[in-house]
């Protein structure tokens, strides 16, 4: 009896273990870990460039041969998924895209619209939605961006990923847009997506060489700059770096940043503020059946550099002068940002959403015509800068002393 029970139990366990056959098991050395993807246009089809890391070369152990740390393959197929699976035709391993870190879309493709290409990334189960989406600026081919070898981080996709990640924490001129964010901005009413731009600075040919990474001053680098503005999921224009920063201030996506401002007592000299705290509040008023948006940006900052002549920072009133000057210039930046967005009829800030949240009934009337209505929306700005500190010294040293 017992033997019968034991043996039947064993039979069940064995058949479950053996019949299932580990069907979706992939060993690490059977996978090609793809960290970057680039999409270009090729006649009718999409040209998909996949960048996979070469584990032996990036490991800290000395097991590599000193070959390139990543390698790129390009496939052309009517759909992205097919291109992806065709990767194995050129590589000894299966493409594995859960660790995708950046997706670079060429400007040409972006102008035509990104809806088609994003479908695969939303749909596939292997894709994690936390990678960054960028647009290759200045008519640069996305494929070429994936080939630039730079010092410190030899894998271009990792380079872009880190640059964006740490940039958001120290300067704020870049904007992190993950696939998740993109999905929300692209599908929600009352907001349009914006994507970070990337381009190549320097000679393209030299940038592909490994010698580029061996130099003190590399002749070619990648540059994260500008923000692509989308309308109806197609690229319509660009914001420059200051305007991107302005957008980050308006949406509250900035953590730590530095800005230069003109001195209150002389037009030629400048001082710098380092902001460490930022909070944006908004309110929507309806005046004469028209929405007016009040933006209030509270910034905590300290003085990090002063080149102003004869400005005595030990006096309280000078503090206020500085604050006032900075506030004015801040408002100007924010205005610039909104002006540029309005010029393209692309509501990247999400004013539509603000109206929707505060006055749903008003939004119902505006919703259908929002692209046309958006440029007419009046926006007021209030920037409050609270300077708490002057750094390690109070006054700048001058020749008089």
């Amino acid at each position, binding site marked *: 009896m017992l033997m019968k029970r034991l043996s039947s139990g064993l039979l069940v366990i064995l058949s479950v273990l053996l019949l299932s056959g580990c069907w979706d098991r992939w060993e690490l050395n059977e*996978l090609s870990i793809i960290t970057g993807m680039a999409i270009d246009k090729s006649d009718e089809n999409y040209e998909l460039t996949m960048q996979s890391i070469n584990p032996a070369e990036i490991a800290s152990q000395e097991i590599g041969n000193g070959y390139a740390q990543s390698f790129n393959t390009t496939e052309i197929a009517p759909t992205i998924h097919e291109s992806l699976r065709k990767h194995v035709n050129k590589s000894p391993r299966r493409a594995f895209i859960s660790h995708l870190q950046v997706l670079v879309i060429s400007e040409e493709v972006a102008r035509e619209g990104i809806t088609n290409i994003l479908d695969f990334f939303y749909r596939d189960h292997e894709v994690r939605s936390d990678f960054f989406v960028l647009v290759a600026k200045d008519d640069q081919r996305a494929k070429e961006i994936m080939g630039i070898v730079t010092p410190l981080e030899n894998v271009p996709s990792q380079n872009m990923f880190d640059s964006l990640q740490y940039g958001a924490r120290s300067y704020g001129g870049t904007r992190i847009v993950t696939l998740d964010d993109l999905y929300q901005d692209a599908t929600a009413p009352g907001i349009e997506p914006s994507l970070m731009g990337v381009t190549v600075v320097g000679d393209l040919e030299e940038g592909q060489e490994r010698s580029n990474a061996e130099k003190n001053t590399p002749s070619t680098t990648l540059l994260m700059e500008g923000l692509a503005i989308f309308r109806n999921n197609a690229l319509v224009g660009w914001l420059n770096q200051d305007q991107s920063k302005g957008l980050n201030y308006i949406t509250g996506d900035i953590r730590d940043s530095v800005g230069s401002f003109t001195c209150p007592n002389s037009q030629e000299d400048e001082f710098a503020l380092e902001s460490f705290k930022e909070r944006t509040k908004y309110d929507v008023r309806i005046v004469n059946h028209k929405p007016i948006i009040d933006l209030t940006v509270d910034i905590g900052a300290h003085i990090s550099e002063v080149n102003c002549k004869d400005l005595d920072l030990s006096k309280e009133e000078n503090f206020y002068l500085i604050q006032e000057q900075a506030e004015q210039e801040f408002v100007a930046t924010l205005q610039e940002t909104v002006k540029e967005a309005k010029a393209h009829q692309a509501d990247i800030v999400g004013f539509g959403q603000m109206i929707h949240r505060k006055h749903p009934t008003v939004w119902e009337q505006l919703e259908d015509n929002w692209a046309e209505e958006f440029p007419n929306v009046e926006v007021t700005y209030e920037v409050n800068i609270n300077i708490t500190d002057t750094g390690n010294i109070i006054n700048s040293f001058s020749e008089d002393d």
Partner: protein
Amino acid sequence: MSVRLRRRYKQNKQPATNVHDHISPHAMNNFHQIMKRTGESDDILHRSFTFPTTNTKATLIYVDGTVDSQAVEKILSRAKFYSSKNDESYQSYFNEVGTTKLHTSIPGILPELLSGHVVIFIDGETSAYSVSLLKMSERTITEPLTETVIRGPREGFIESLRVNTSLVRRRLADEKLRFEPRTIGSRTKTKINIAYIEGIADESLLTELRQRLDRIETDSILEDGNIEELIQDATYTPFPTVYSSERPDTVTSHLLEGKTAIFVDGSPFVLIVPALFVQFFHNAEDHTQRADIASLVRLLRFGAAFIALLAPSLYIAITTFHQELIPTRLLGNLAAQSEGTPFPTFIEAVLMEITFEILREAGIRMPQPVGQAVSIVGAIVIGQAAVQAGIFSAAVVIVVSLTAIASFVFPSYSMASPFRILRFGFMGLAASFGLLGISVGFTAMLLHLSSLKSFGIPYMSDLSPFVYSDQKDALIRLPKWMMKERPKTTDHQDVERQHTRKPSPDR
């Protein structure tokens, strides 16, 4: 030739027909009778002497090495002062040397003789006296080899039942402490003591334990493990449901919590029932160290148990099924290590684990001077050569080493074994089904654990069924003054333990 041998063998057997049970009035006849029964065993000695006052001859028989020889001499030397006129019976006379019992048949005498009694036959008497003079050479009390502590008593049990009970009695001078004797094993006649504190220990549990012990029908009990296997609740489980300890202080503290201990003569381990799952993660040191560090160390042990059980299987599952769970840079490093390794991760891990188990077994069985050689070879084989030869990836070596170290954290060796066994099962599940397999396996293990009982008490007690008040000494240990009551799972009577208030200076 063989026929003749057999005949001689038969002839040797011949005297057996003269065996009789009654005690002869001739003392020497009885000695011969005993020698016949014991096959002229070399270790059975006799001394003949006379009581001068009555001129009665007597024979004293004992097993050499089991009795106190000085006491034997005392009996012999005092015989000349014996006087029947004082109305003194032989029994009360022998009683002055050692506990004396009267026997009327040879079969009744033999077990006594063989377990440290001196047997005296007196001419003209049809009964015999056995005087208990047990004195065997025994190991001195040393520090326990398992369950070592940094702070705490260094005494460990030894192979002598009496010494072991005395070690507990010394810590528990309570009149309610009971040692209930039993003799089990038709041939070994092993002495066993059931220890408990009356009024604290559960009566129904005691009855159950007595029944289970009485049900044992075997010829031999060699040590406590034999008893454990014969009285445990469930055989088809890797988990131990009887706790064994080498430490008198541990046994004492369990007795005070209403548990029952079983002392087995010849074994330096004492069994404690009922045994709960969490108890195997407790250590005597938990109560000698401060409560804060004791609690943290306990949590660490539970953490280590998880590592010992699941680390290799999690590694297999994550690297072969769920690569997306690994941070990108770590994945790069792991992938680099698996470059060029010929085996799948599962095979690698299993081979490494088996290698480790072999080394571990070798380390235990090896004579001590050679032990070091094993560890050196092991370190070289596992650590260096295997990785450099490209057979195993370094990450697997790290995982297996971590598992090995974690499995040594168990305070109780018997609880480490189920985790060793199940580890391989989990590795199989991980290799076939990934994390899904592990979670199914883990659930099955939890269900199994919850179904176990130790002497009627749920094995996972304190945790499931959850007893709030017993959490004071389960996963963590609260300060002593907070434990005002005995654990509720094992004790239902005389609940209160102390009234000590929170210590603080007088205000």
